[in-house]
């Protein structure tokens, strides 16, 4: 996938872009719907996310994160801007000139993949109550208080479950900084 993104970035490769769309659009749309968009809006936001990928591909740098992480970040930012229609106080960087590079060093790309594999493994192995709050936060887009309300838990319990989950994740990727 990082490969397709590089082709879009370097040679504005339309065929590579189409493949990226096919690979990512169904998940971006699903993400937007889980975040509360109706199917029509989700479809529009999906188009917009992938268009942003096209426009900003040159800013993508493989050594800062995988294609998936980058596209997730773009979807996340668009979701705040367009779905909540809020001012983005919290846009995560989508790439800066100083960070762009032609080819990520192979070991960095490997490390990034390894990190994601490990995070995934930790998430899969989380106790159900911890996995639940993490998913509600990242996928359903609920604030801590909304999660507390939804699950009928004290706010402090929600936060401590989030913390416990992250402790494990951090431990799993600590040696790969």
């Amino acid at each position, binding site marked *: 996938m990082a490969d397709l993104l590089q082709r879009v970035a370097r040679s504005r490769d339309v065929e590579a872009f189409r493949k990226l769309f*096919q690979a990512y659009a169904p998940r971006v749309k699903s993400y937007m719907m889980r975040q509360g968009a109706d199917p029509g809006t989700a479809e529009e936001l999906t188009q917009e996310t992938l268009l942003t990928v096209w426009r900003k591909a040159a800013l993508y740098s493989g050594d800062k994160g995988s294609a998936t992480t980058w596209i997730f970040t773009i979807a996340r930012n668009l979701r705040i801007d367009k779905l*909540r229609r809020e*001012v983005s106080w919290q846009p995560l960087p989508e790439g800066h000139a100083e960070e762009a590079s032609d080819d990520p060093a192979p070991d960095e790309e490997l490390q990034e993949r390894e990190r994601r594999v490990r995070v995934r493994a930790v998430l899969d192995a989380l106790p159900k109550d911890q996995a639940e709050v993490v998913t509600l936060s990242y996928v359903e887009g609920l604030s801590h208080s909304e999660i507390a309300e939804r699950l009928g838990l004290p706010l402090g319990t929600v936060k401590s479950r989030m913390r416990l989950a992250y402790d494990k994740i951090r431990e799993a990727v600590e040696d790969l900084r």
Partner: protein
Amino acid sequence: MAIMHHPDVATLMSCSAGSQPEALAAVVSSHLSMCPACAREVGRMSLIGAALFETIAPVEVASTAPIVEARAGEADNPPPPDVRPSGGAIPYPLQKRLGLTSFDDIPWRRLAPGVWDHRLPLTEGATGDLRLLKVAPGVKVPEHGHEGEELTLLLDGSYSDATGIYRTGDVSDLDNTTEHAPVSDPDRGCICLVASEKRARYKGLLARLLQPFTGL
């Protein structure tokens, strides 16, 4: 001076997920601009979002890829490196929003002797309260608890309570389990950015803050 008090890990996760109420997000993003350690941590947390993103069940997409052939030239040039002006004590994200670089230029509203505030508008429909608070030297805020999530970022001067001294860049991340009675710096007072996810709640705090002056 090194930052000693950071937001709770759960607070940073909510930021990384993009699911933080706007007022709280303002405080976290201002802190991230001052604290490379937390900025790195939030960067690492985006792996969680990406990993979960891969597990989402795909849904059928009705439309095809946007026609980009005609948009070949429509590429954003890499933005200039994010130059964060170091002059002025107002954190960069806040500067952008206020259009001001100095605390002296803020149109402070006097609330009571030694206490001023300046409210920052939130998006219509967003709940919560976001404001800058300026407190004269040596003012003691009566003991109070908190409800929901409340974040305070110290921007100038300091204050202290039972949990320690808070200086520039420090964040006090409180929830309903904490009670405190902060006192502002005896020489410099303090300026802070205060966010509460519940607006009504903030009014209560304000009333208590003003109690010694207004006898509410």
